[in-house]
C-alpha cells in the first residue's frame, strides 16, 4: 500500500515537475537540408540542420524518393558521415536520377518536415583535393623554375574516364598576400618561371570535375629558391665600373673646360662703361677731372640744323575787297600733325599776325609763346577735334582776359578774324568764349593733311592773329588740287564741328553772333613760294541758304581807324556782306541789326596799330556780340 502510494506520488511528481518548473515543451522545429555532396560521382552524402528541439529529445529521419518510383526509402546510413548526415553508398546511388529528399524531426509531442530537396548526383560532385603534391626546382639554361606535380584524389576514378578533372594551382611568396593563380587543365604537372632569387614559395593545388564544384585547396608545399644572385652581381659590378669610368671622364672634361663653363654659367658682371669715364680718376677722387672727362663737346648743341623748326611762322591770310591775294607765311606751329613747310622769310604782310608789326607786338610778344602753345595745342586738337576740348579749355582758362570769340568756320576758306581787336576788358575771360573760339579754331586743323591751323586763340591772341593760318607746304600736294576738294573735306569736318560748337556755346550772347561772322575765301592756288593764293568765295552756294548752322548776319566793316582809346573804328560797308556771305549765306544774313558804329565803340581795344594794317575788315558780327552792341 505504502509502496503503491509512493509510486503514484513519484509518477505524479515526475509528470508534474515540469509543469511546476514552468517549462514548456513543444514539437520540434523544422529541420533544413543544408547540402549534399558527392566526392566521386559514385556515392553521396547529405547534411541537414535541425531546428529547435522543443525541449524534448528529438530524432531525425531522412526519407527519399527516386525519380521514377513513388516508393519512399529511408536513409541507409546515418553515422558514416557524422552527425546529422546521411550517407548513400554505391548501391543506393544512381546517376542521372533525381532524388527527392526530406528530413523529418520527431519528438514526443510531434514531428516536423523539412522542405524537400531535389538532387541529381551528377551536379553535386565536389572531389577531394589532389594528393601527393610535389614541388621541385629545375633549371633551364641557368635560370631556375619550379615544377609542381600532383595526383588526383584517390577516390575519383579518372582512370576509367568515369570522372574527368581539371586542376588549378596557386603560388605566392611567403611575405606576400596575393596568390598567383594558374590553370593547369587536365595535366598533372606544372612549371612556374620568373622566380625571385632566394625567395620562399608556397604552392597549393585544387581540382574540379567537368561539371561540378571546386575541391578544397590541397595542403601547402614550401620551397626555397636558391640564390642565383651571382649572375646578377657580375652585371652590377660591370655597370658600376663603367659608370665610374664615365664619371671620371666627365670630371676631367669639366676640369679642362672649367673656365669657359664658368664664363657660360656665371658671366662676369660688366663694369660701368661710360665714355670718357675713367675708373682710375674716380679712384683718385678728383671730381673735377672726372667730370671734365665726361664733358662732351658737342652737347648741348648750340647750333641746330633744324633751327628753323623752332621758328614760328605765321600764315597770314586776308581777303581784300579787290581780291587781293595775300602773301602768307607758313607758320609751323607744331611738328606733329602739321607738316608745314617753313619759310624763313618773315614775309609778314603785317596783317594781323601775331608776328606782324601791324599788331601790337607787346602783347603779341607776350602771348606769342602762349599763342604758340595754344596754336600747337589747337593744332593738335584740331586734328582730333573734339577730344582735346578739355585741354583746350585749360589753355583758355589760363588767359586772363576774356576772349573775344570770333569763331570762324572755315569750310576750306580762310577766315579772317577780328583778331586785331583785343577782347574788351568788360568781358572777363569767359571760358566758354575761349572754348568756343578755340573750338572753332580746332575745327580747322582737320585730319586732312591740309594743315589748317588756327592761330592761338587766346584772348590775348585776339589781338594778334585772328587769322587763319595755313600751314601749307610742298608736302601737301593735294592743296594744289581744286579747291573743291579741300573745301569739301574741310567743309565736311567743320560743318559738324560748327554745329557742335554752335550748340555748345552758352547762350551768352557773346557767342552766337560770333558764329555768324565768317569770312570765306577759297584757296585759289599755291604759288611757288608756298603762298596760298586766296580768292573770295564766289556766289554759288545758294543751296545753303537754309543752312541752319550758318551764321547769319555777317557784317564786315572796314577799319576806319583807331582812335585814341585804342578803339578800332570800323566802317561799315554794305557790299561786303554780299560778297562775304557769298554763296553760303543768304542775303538775309546781312544783318542790319548790327550796329557797326556802336560796335565799333565797344570794340575791343586795339593794341598797336594792327587794325589799320589789317585788311581792314573786321567781323562786325563778333563785334556786335558785345553786349554793348
Amino acid at each position: 500500500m505504502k509502496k503503491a502510494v509512493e509510486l503514484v506520488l513519484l509518477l505524479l511528481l515526475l509528470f508534474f515537475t515540469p509543469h511546476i518548473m514552468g517549462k514548456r515543451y513543444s514539437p520540434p522545429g523544422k529541420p533544413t537540408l543544408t547540402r549534399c555532396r558527392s566526392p566521386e560521382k559514385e556515392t553521396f552524402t547529405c547534411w541537414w540542420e535541425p531546428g529547435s528541439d522543443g525541449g524534448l529529445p528529438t530524432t531525425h529521419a531522412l526519407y527519399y524518393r527516386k525519380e521514377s518510383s513513388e516508393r519512399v526509402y529511408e536513409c541507409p546510413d546515418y553515422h558514416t558521415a557524422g552527425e546529422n548526415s546521411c550517407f548513400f553508398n554505391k548501391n543506393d546511388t544512381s546517376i542521372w536520377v533525381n532524388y527527392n529528399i526530406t528530413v523529418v524531426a520527431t519528438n514526443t509531442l510531434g514531428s516536423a518536415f523539412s522542405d524537400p530537396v531535389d538532387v541529381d548526383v551528377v551536379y553535386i560532385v565536389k572531389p577531394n583535393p589532389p594528393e601527393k603534391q610535389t614541388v621541385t626546382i629545375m633549371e633551364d639554361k641557368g635560370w631556375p623554375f619550379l615544377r609542381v606535380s600532383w595526383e588526383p584524389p584517390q577516390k575519383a576514378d579518372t582512370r576509367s574516364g568515369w570522372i574527368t578533372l581539371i586542376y588549378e594551382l596557386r603560388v605566392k611568396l611567403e611575405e606576400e598576400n596575393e596568390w598567383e593563380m594558374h590553370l593547369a587543365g587536365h595535366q598533372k604537372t606544372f612549371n612556374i618561371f620568373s622566380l625571385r632569387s632566394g625567395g620562399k614559395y608556397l604552392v597549393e593545388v585544387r581540382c574540379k570535375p567537368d561539371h561540378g564544384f571546386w575541391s578544397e585547396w590541397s595542403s601547402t608545399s614550401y620551397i626555397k629558391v636558391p640564390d642565383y644572385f651571382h649572375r646578377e652581381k657580375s652585371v652590377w659590378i660591370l655597370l658600376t665600373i663603367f659608370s665610374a669610368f664615365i664619371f671620371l671622364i666627365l670630371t676631367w672634361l669639366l676640369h679642362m673646360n672649367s673656365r669657359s663653363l664658368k664664363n657660360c654659367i656665371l658671366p662676369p658682371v660688366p663694369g660701368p662703361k661710360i665714355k670718357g669715364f675713367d675708373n682710375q680718376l674716380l679712384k683718385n677722387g678728383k671730381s673735377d677731372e672726372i667730370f671734365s672727362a665726361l664733358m662732351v663737346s658737342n652737347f648741348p648743341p648750340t647750333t641746330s640744323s633744324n633751327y628753323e623748326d623752332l621758328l614760328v611762322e605765321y600764315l597770314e591770310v586776308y581777303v581784300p575787297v579787290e581780291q587781293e591775294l595775300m602773301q602768307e607765311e607758313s607758320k609751323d606751329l607744331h611738328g606733329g600733325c602739321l607738316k608745314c613747310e617753313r619759310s624763313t622769310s618773315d614775309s609778314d604782310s603785317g596783317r594781323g599776325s601775331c608776328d606782324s608789326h601791324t599788331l601790337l607786338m607787346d602783347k603779341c610778344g607776350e602771348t606769342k609763346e602762349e599763342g604758340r602753345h595754344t596754336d600747337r595745342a589747337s593744332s593738335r586738337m584740331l586734328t582730333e577735334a573734339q577730344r582735346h576740348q578739355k585741354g583746350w579749355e585749360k589753355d583758355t582758362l589760363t588767359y586772363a582776359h576774356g576772349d573775344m570769340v570770333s569763331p570762324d568756320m572755315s569750310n576750306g576758306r580762310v577766315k579772317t578774324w577780328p583778331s586785331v581787336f583785343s577782347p574788351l576788358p568788360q568781358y572777363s575771360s569767359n571760358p566758354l568764349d575761349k572754348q568756343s573760339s578755340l573750338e572753332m579754331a580746332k575745327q580747322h586743323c582737320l585730319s586732312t593733311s591740309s594743315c589748317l591751323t588756327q592761330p592761338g586763340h587766346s584772348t590775348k591772341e585776339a589781338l594778334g592773329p585772328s587769322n587763319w593760318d595755313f600751314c601749307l607746304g610742298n608736302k601737301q600736294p593735294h592743296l594744289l588740287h581744286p579747291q573743291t576738294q579741300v573745301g569739301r573735306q574741310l567743309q565736311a569736318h567743320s560743318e559738324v564741328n560748327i554745329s557742335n560748337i554752335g550748340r555748345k556755346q552758352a547762350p551768352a550772347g557773346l557767342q552766337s553772333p560770333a558764329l555768324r561772322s565768317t569770312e570765306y575765301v577759297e584757296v585759289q592756288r599755291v604759288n611757288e613760294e608756298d603762298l596760298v593764293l586766296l580768292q573770295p568765295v564766289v556766289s554759288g552756294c545758294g543751296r545753303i541758304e537754309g543752312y541752319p548752322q550758318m551764321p547769319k548776319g555777317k557784317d564786315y566793316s572796314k577799319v576806319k581807324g583807331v582812335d585814341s582809346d585804342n578803339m578800332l573804328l570800323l566802317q561799315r560797308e554794305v557790299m561786303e556782306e554780299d560778297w562775304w556771305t557769298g554763296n553760303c549765306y543768304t542775303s538775309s544774313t546781312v544783318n542790319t541789326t548790327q550796329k557797326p558804329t556802336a560796335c565799333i565803340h565797344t570794340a575791343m581795344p586795339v593794341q598797336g596799330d594792327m587794325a589799320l594794317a589789317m585788311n581792314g575788315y573786321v567781323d562786325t558780327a563778333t563785334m556786335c556780340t558785345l553786349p554793348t552792341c
Partner: protein
Amino acid sequence: CLSAVLLLSLLSLGVSSQPITDGQRLFSIAVSRVQHLHLLAQRLFSDFESSLQTEEQRQLNKIFLQDFCNSDYIISPIDKHETQRSSVLKLLSISYRLVESWEFPSRSLSGGSAPRNQISPKLSELKTGILLLIKASEDGAELFPDSSALQLPPYGNYYQSLSADESLRRTYELLACFKKDMHKVETYLTVAKCRLSPEANCTL
C-alpha cells in the same frame, strides 16, 4: 601535283606511325564534340533558369518528380558499375540512340544566345561520328542494324505533338532533359574511349 603526292605520302606515313589509332582519334573527336554540346545545353538551361522568376522556379522544381524525358525509354546504365560492365559497343549504341532521339526535338529548343539550328546539325554530326565508331569496332556491323530497328521511340512524336505548346514547363523539361542526356553521352563515350586506350591514365 608532285608536292601534293609527297604530302600525302608523308601524311600516310605519319598516320601509320602514330601511336594513336584511328579509333582513338575518332573517339577524341566524338568526345570533344559531345562535350561542346553538353556545354551548350548547360548554358541554355542556366539562361532559361535565370530568366525565370522565383515563383516559377519553385513550381518547376517540383516537376522533377515525374518521368518526363523522352529518352527515358532508352535503358542506359545509371551508375558506374553498370557502365563499367557494359561493353564498348553497348555504350556506343546507347549513345547513338540518345543522340538520335534528340535530333528532331532539338529544333524546338529555344536558341537563346546560340541559334537553335546550331544544335541540330551538331547532333547529326555527332551521330555520324558515333556510327563510324560503331562500324570500326568489332561486332558493330552485327549489332547496329538490329538496334536501329528496335529503337524507334514509342513516343516518337512526344515532343512533336507538344511542340506547339510553348509553355514554360515544356521548355524547362526540354532543356533539363537535353542537358542530362548530353552528359550521359559524354560519360559513355569517355568511358569507352578510356577503355580502348592503351594508357592507364586516360584522362590525358
